């Protein structure tokens, strides 16, 4: 740790523009008092909290879609995924001004000379590339994803997941490197030596960054927080729009499932069952139904509640004589697509509100909502609420 590295001295004309590496941050030639450790420390803590919230809610979303064998996803509380995924997207969007302000505040360190003098400083700086690059990647790809924009050649979900581990790893190393500076910066008053000459003070700057996070939240959170709907003029989705007043992620036209021929349509229950079933649409309608008020929650953060009516999956399984506790895989009429099939875990398969729905708010399903039959289950990401269901396979 005591090793001190020697660096060549740049020419004086260049040198006078480059800040010293010391602590606190040396302001650049602009001499703004906002490039300051006290601001960096406070924004850093806010970012550590928001990124941790996003990481945990993101992990939760990830395991729902790629469940590890040791984890049984619970079906209750029904609205849990709606909350965790709403928090994930709202927090991520609110973190954008925090991240940009933090990077702006510490930017003089990017051009400081020498770049590092000790092993600790070298490690600190080396971890910045994954931390900064990963943070920008996560917030940038997330913002594009909620708008349905994919200008890249990787799988969004898996690349976003990989970047989250990269970023949080970088964050832990960063926290280890700057814990001392941060603690010292938090002890110093924001007001000290803060003559503004009409400019934003440090507290004013932090207030404006907070206001920016607030404006971003109010103008977008209505995608899932219904009371904010009228104010969320920049939300990429609107919970009241779409066929039957519910948004759609994959339309019947895109899935190639428009105009299903009901004469030829059959619902099959097969696999490890005592009596395989082959039911027409009318036979499904004739079964005893149940109505459940459940949210449809997209991984992209929007959600909308509706009353769904249909046959409980567990009734079908019982009628076919499936063993209790069986695992079920649903398949769609859709020929292609990453979410053509979905696995229904034990807890969901046993829940009374896990329905193969035929009706939405009293009307037959719109083709975009999965006519003739779709899965709707409590606490489950929308991409796994399989539409146009034709096969129930018991494993």
């Amino acid at each position, binding site marked *: 740790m005591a090793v001190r590295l020697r660096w060549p001295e740049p020419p004086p004309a260049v040198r006078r523009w480059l800040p010293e590496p010391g602590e606190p941050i040396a302001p650049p030639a602009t001499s703004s008092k906002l490039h300051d450790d006290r601001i960096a420390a406070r924004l850093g803590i806010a970012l550590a909290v928001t990124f941790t919230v996003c990481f945990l809610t993101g992990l939760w979303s990830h395991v729902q879609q790629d469940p590890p064998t040791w984890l049984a996803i619970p079906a209750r509380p029904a609205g849990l995924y709606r909350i965790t995924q709403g928090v994930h997207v709202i927090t991520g969007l609110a973190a954008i*001004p925090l991240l*940009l302000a933090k990077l702006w505040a510490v*930017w003089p360190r990017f051009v400081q000379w020498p770049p590092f003098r000790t092993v600790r400083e070298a490690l600190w700086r080396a971890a910045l590339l994954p931390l900064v690059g990963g943070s920008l990647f996560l917030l940038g790809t997330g913002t594009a994803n909620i*708008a*349905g924009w994919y200008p890249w050649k990787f799988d969004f979900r898996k690349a976003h997941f*990989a970047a989250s581990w990269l970023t949080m790893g970088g964050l832990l190393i960063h926290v280890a490197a700057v814990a001392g500076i941060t603690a010292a910066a938090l002890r110093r008053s924001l007001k000290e030596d803060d003559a503004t000459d009409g400019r934003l003070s440090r507290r004013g700057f932090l207030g*404006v960054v907070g206001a920016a996070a607030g404006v971003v939240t109010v103008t977008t959170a209505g995608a899932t927080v219904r009371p904010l709907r009228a104010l969320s*003029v*920049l939300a990429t989705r609107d919970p009241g729009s*779409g066929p039957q007043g519910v948004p759609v992620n994959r339309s019947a036209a895109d899935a190639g499932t428009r105009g299903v021929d009901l004469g030829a349509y059959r619902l099959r229950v097969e696999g490890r069952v005592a009596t395989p079933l082959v039911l027409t649409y009318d036979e499904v309608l004739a079964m005893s139904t149940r109505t459940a008020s459940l949210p449809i929650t997209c991984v992209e953060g929007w959600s909308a509640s509706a009353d769904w009516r249909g046959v409980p999956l567990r009734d079908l399984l019982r009628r076919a004589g499936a063993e209790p506790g069986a695992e079920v895989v649903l398949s769609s009429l859709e020929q292609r697509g990453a979410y053509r099939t979905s696995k229904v875990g034990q807890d969901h398969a046993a829940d009374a509100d896990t329905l193969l729905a035929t009706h939405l708010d009293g009307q037959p399903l719109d083709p975009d909502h999965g006519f003739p039959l779709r899965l709707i289950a409590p606490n489950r990401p929308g991409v796994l609420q399989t539409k146009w269901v034709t096969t129930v396979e018991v494993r």
Partner: protein
Amino acid sequence: MRAGTAARVLAAVAGVAMFAVTVRYAVLRSIDVRPAVWVRWWVTAAVVHDVVVAPAAIAVGWLVVRFAPRWLKAPLQTALLLSAVIVAVSWPALRGYGRMPSNPTYLPRDYAGGLTLTLAVVWIACAGWAAARLVRRRQAAPLGPSVAAAPR
């Protein structure tokens, strides 16, 4: 102090372990993650931000504090900061990048209108704040109206 050092070493080791998880996942799922493309995206993001975006923001801020009159500086800094963030967040929607003719529930709103409205609220609020500062300055001016008329 000892406990603090141990905690920091532990955090750094955990950070390195998370890098290992990242590499393992990216390799195992390389068909989906496309590691070479993925690395290029986040390295490019960091470089473009640090070399272009941050210096540009610092340059604009410098121009504001250098040339704007005293009463206008903070309101103008505020309006510019808020505007930059709002435009950045709404950019994909504004440009309609994810719009799908087959699915009108993506980007269902009028984003040019929404952005104009949001920016109008920000700039009107900041203009009001600047006007209040100007008025206060004039009222506080110790000399006659001829001097107070030139606020700087």
